């Protein structure tokens, strides 16, 4: 597929998605795609630090939760409009990432994973026990009454935009100098340092940026659910899910988290409709094992590798060799 055709397909798909609410699909369907967009945003932004730089953050849900709480508090205390509140929410999440990133990003591998996991637990527990933030009772947001179909369509469009911006940023970064620096950190941080790559600065920048988008998404999500509770927005399973989505699709490229998030959300939804949740979860768990054993780099690199020999010169040479 040449690049013009690729681009045309891409924009057609995007336009089709943007126009979808006009044909008045069922509300359930809109809410489902909204959830898919949310996971695309979360796992694509996670991929900046987790996939590109190889620093597995298991606490990313904390940035999402912080975003939710910042915009919920701004609305409740200062009556700032939900959609304006999302920007400070993202900025605040980025600020928190900058503060905790400074000490935590010195740790590598599983240690970084555990320290970020702890951070997510602490954020959850602090919010739950702090009465100013609603404590374990949560916050009810009194919103303007809107037609359900209209409000779902509105949130759908906003998240489509945000997902588009996140994925576009990820794609730009992948081929930029910044992205290459992150890739060098993932491959071998010591060598990267000896080549004068400012690894500490790049890691911090990637971490802050990867916290910003979940913060913004959380800021909008607060109004979508309109009842904010730590168990919902600091749920550690979301954290784990976004990591798995990105790794499932393949963390080295921008396509990976998008494909991982879309496919896993669809599989999850279908399984939980048709069979008992326990069986659905068993199939889900088995899927992770199968993917990591047979396609350790994720689905996207696997598909690319297997699609290549079918076209062009490489095919004949490889067939001749084997």
């Amino acid at each position, binding site marked *: 597929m040449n690049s013009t055709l690729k681009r045309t397909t891409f924009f057609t798909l995007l336009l089709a998605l943007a126009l979808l609410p006009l044909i008045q699909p069922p509300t359930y369907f809109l809410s489902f795609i909204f959830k898919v967009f949310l996971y695309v945003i979360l796992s694509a932004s996670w991929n900046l630090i987790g996939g590109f730089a*190889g620093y*597995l953050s298991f606490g990313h849900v904390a940035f999402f939760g912080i975003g939710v709480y910042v915009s919920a508090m701004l609305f409740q205390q200062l009556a700032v409009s939900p959609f304006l509140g999302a920007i400070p929410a993202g900025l605040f999440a980025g600020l928190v990432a900058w503060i905790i990133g400074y*000490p*935590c990003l*010195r*740790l590598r*591998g*599983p*240690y970084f*994973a*555990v*320290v970020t*996991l*702890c*951070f997510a*637990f*602490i954020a959850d*527990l*602090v919010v*739950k*026990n702090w009465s100013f933030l609603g404590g374990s009772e949560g916050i009810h947001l009194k919103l303007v009454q809107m037609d359900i179909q209209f409000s779902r369509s509105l949130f759908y469009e906003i998240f489509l935009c945000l997902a588009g911006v996140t994925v576009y940023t990820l794609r730009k970064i992948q081929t930029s100098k910044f992205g290459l620096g992150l890739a060098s950190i993932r491959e071998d941080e010591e060598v990267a340092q000896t080549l004068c790559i400012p690894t500490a600065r790049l890691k911090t920048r990637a971490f802050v940026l990867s916290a910003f988008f979940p913060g913004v998404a959380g800021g909008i999500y607060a109004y979508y659910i309109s009842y904010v509770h730590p168990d919902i927005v600091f749920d*550690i399973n979301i954290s*784990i899910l976004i990591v*798995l989505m990105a*790794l499932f699709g393949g963390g080295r490229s921008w396509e990976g988290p998008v494909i991982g998030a879309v496919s896993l959300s669809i599989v999850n939804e279908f399984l939980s409709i048709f069979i008992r949740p*326990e*069986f659905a*979860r*068993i199939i*889900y*768990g*088995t*899927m*992770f*094992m199968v*993917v*990591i*054993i047979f396609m*350790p*780099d994720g689905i996207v690199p696997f598909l690319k590798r297997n699609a290549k020999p079918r076209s062009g010169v490489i095919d004949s040479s490889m067939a001749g060799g084997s």
Partner: protein
Amino acid sequence: MWNPVVILQSIVSGILMGGIFALFGVGFSLTWGVMKVINIAHAAFGILAAYVAYWGLTVFGIDPILSLAVSLPLLFCAGVLIHRFLVQPITRSRDVVVASMVLTFGLAIVLENLMLLAWSPDERLITTGYSSTSIFLGDIIIRISNLLAFVLSMVGIGAIYLFLYRTRTGKAVRATWQDPEGAALQGINLRRVSMITFGMAIASSGAGGVAMAYMYSFNPPAHNLWLIFLFLVVIVGGVGSILGSAVAGLIIGVIIGLSGAFFPMQWVNVLLFGLLMGILLIKPEGLFRK
């Protein structure tokens, strides 16, 4: 509140609890240290053994400790099989730590839901005939079942220690932990060593799970919480160190016991996670690693 009896009591129960964390964490620490495999499903195997023990007790009236005689060899075999068919294929991947975490996370989901199907999500507690009896040391109360669980844990850790430091295979395991390539050059079969390590780790998790079940109620999703304790033990004690895990388990137990006496319960967890974060940031190689 500052009553010495309260403090002593919480230290004693902390030590009893910590011994169990230690046994539970040893296997987790070994697979991490020797094979660079972080087994997220470790605690799930503990829960599985606890269910087998519970089942043996309620259906056949077998004492949980006796049921270990059946479940430990079975868990060892399960560990060997899992190693052969699931862990072995990923050891060639570029990043074993990440791959193993994803793999065993999948395994943990499968195990948890199989257990949910078999035993429902209701909370269970192992209660034997001697559960309600206690020993009194002055004003300090020690429940017999907790003491038994503690003794079981100490015996388990002692057995693993003797295996590692007094047998040839144990020596091979330690050599692999220190330097896999060097060990392979000396003719140590890495595959066999990691297979034994994995089987042993799963079996020790089973013993730890039964010991835990004496003290805490459990249900299939509880393994997530137990996993946090495992990470605490391993990170405080240093990855791969037996004595480190033992001491770390005791320290954590005492900290939980003491802080439980002085703070409201919900802040104890904040304290624990804060402690874990602090240790990771200041001394990530663990407090006891040489």
